[in-house]
């Protein structure tokens, strides 16, 4: 317990430093956030046009898309604000830059993936929060569930992206795999899951777990029930534990680089 507190305390300092360093270039900070909000908003216009013509697709309508966008953008935003370096994990391993993280007496996985904040992710959170509070009808129960779901989605995404990056311990080069995997999960997650069936659904609940960050939370918010919530919690624990275990295994294969670098 003491170790966990120390780790959390350390990560809080890392996050604070990340934030201060991002704020150093204030105009750039604001531009990136505004761009991401605009990007998400314009993407949502596509769905407004789409549902103007089709009303519903296999039971999914615009209200479901609002829920989907509010959860996925908030979850992804939280993930990459706190663990923005997870997307670069494979490069760190490939280039032998993990040396910096493993020489300190801190958990190398948490330290490495938390040492960068994605500024545009702040825009994602603002967009998701705006949609939930201003475009969706909610009560206290729904609000609590939405917060829980967003945090679970953030945990699943962080674990999934870390797993992709960790592959570099064995494959050497995993940057392409990592990019493709992130593209795949985010793209599949932003469309109504009801359009997929058969093997595609199987993939979306296993290899590319987009179903757990889109369909399950949306159905949970539409019809709150303990079973769906339990499934989501259990899956989050499984994927996070697997990611942690896999990184530990991979670290044993790590070959240090002779690259001298300073972590600013």
């Amino acid at each position: 317990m003491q170790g966990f507190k120390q780790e959390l305390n350390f990560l809080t300092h890392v996050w604070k430093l990340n934030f201060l360093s991002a704020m150093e270039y204030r105009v750039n900070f604001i531009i990136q956030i505004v761009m991401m909000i605009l990007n998400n908003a314009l993407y949502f216009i596509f769905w407004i046009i789409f549902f103007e013509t089709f009303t519903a697709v296999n039971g999914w309508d615009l209200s479901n898309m609002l829920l989907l966008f509010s959860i996925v953008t908030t979850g992804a935003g939280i993930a990459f604000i706190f663990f923005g370096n997870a997307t670069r994990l494979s490069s760190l391993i490939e280039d032998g830059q993990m040396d910096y993280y493993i020489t300190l007496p801190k958990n190398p996985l948490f330290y490495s993936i938390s040492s960068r904040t994605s500024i545009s992710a702040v825009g994602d959170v603002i967009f998701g929060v705006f949609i939930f509070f201003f475009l969706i009808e909610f009560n206290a129960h729904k609000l609590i569930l939405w917060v829980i779901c967003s945090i679970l989605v953030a945990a699943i995404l962080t674990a999934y992206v870390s797993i992709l990056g960790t592959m570099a311990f064995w494959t050497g080069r995993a940057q392409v795999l990592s990019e493709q995997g992130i593209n795949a999960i985010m793209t599949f997650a932003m469309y109504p899951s009801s359009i997929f069936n058969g093997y595609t659904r199987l993939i979306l609940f296993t290899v590319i777990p987009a179903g757990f960050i889109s369909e399950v939370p949306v159905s949970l918010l539409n019809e709150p029930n303990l079973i769906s919530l339990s499934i989501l919690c259990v899956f989050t624990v499984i994927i996070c534990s697997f990611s942690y275990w896999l990184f530990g295994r991979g670290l044993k294969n790590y070959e240090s680089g002779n690259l001298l670098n300073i972590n600013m």
Partner: protein
Amino acid sequence: MIIKTIDKYSMVMGVSIKNTLVYSKEILYRTSFMILLLFIFIQLWTSAYGDEASIAGYTLSQTIWYLVVTETILLSKIAMGNQISGEVISGSLAYTLGKPYHYMVYNFFSGLGDSFIRLFINFIVGSVLVFIIIGPISFKVSTIVPIMLVVLLALILDYLIIGMIALMAFFMEDVSSLFFIYSKMLFILGGLLIPIDFFPGWLQNIATTLPFNLILFAPASLFVNFSISAFLNILYQQLFWILIFSLILETIYRIGQKKLTSNGG
């Protein structure tokens, strides 16, 4: 004189084609996102159409083949914007001024070679996927030349807009936000994912008045539903906007050249 000029720029295009072919694996890697998107949209449109034979004048097959063309053009556009704005900002544009070519024309042909290879590969990859899942689209061989002409003019039009934005770097420190806004204009008003005919009336009017639809929507809609009158209409509009934007681009370039300062070192 004219033959020499054509020779000069064809050489530039030839070098660009050779360079692109060296990195053919990179092009294939980029097509993977197109495959993913097409796969998702095949599922989406199939569910949305249900038993409907036609919506807004498009059959299911036409809507999906439309997306193949818009995605192909989007992923094969002449990608010189960042290079031009970078050279303006760094001042390295000054080194090219003494060379025997027009800077913007040189960059156009340099990007066009790469663009042709990408067009070919992206279209083949997208078509194979859609052919397997959805089936063929009725298509006349005689329409190939007019459609290719419209696609070429779409690439020129896009290059002129990108060029104008890139040259704004003479007056602004960072033009990335302008590139971003333009890409989003193409996404919505260009009809990237959904044909403009599906839009509500008021938005359709805005989209068809602005030139963005001539880059993605016009070539794609012509491909899935060819008619001579539609072809001529698109051709006139594209030529009109190309003329307007060429004049603006040349004006910005000349004003920018006068502002250019270069330091030795």
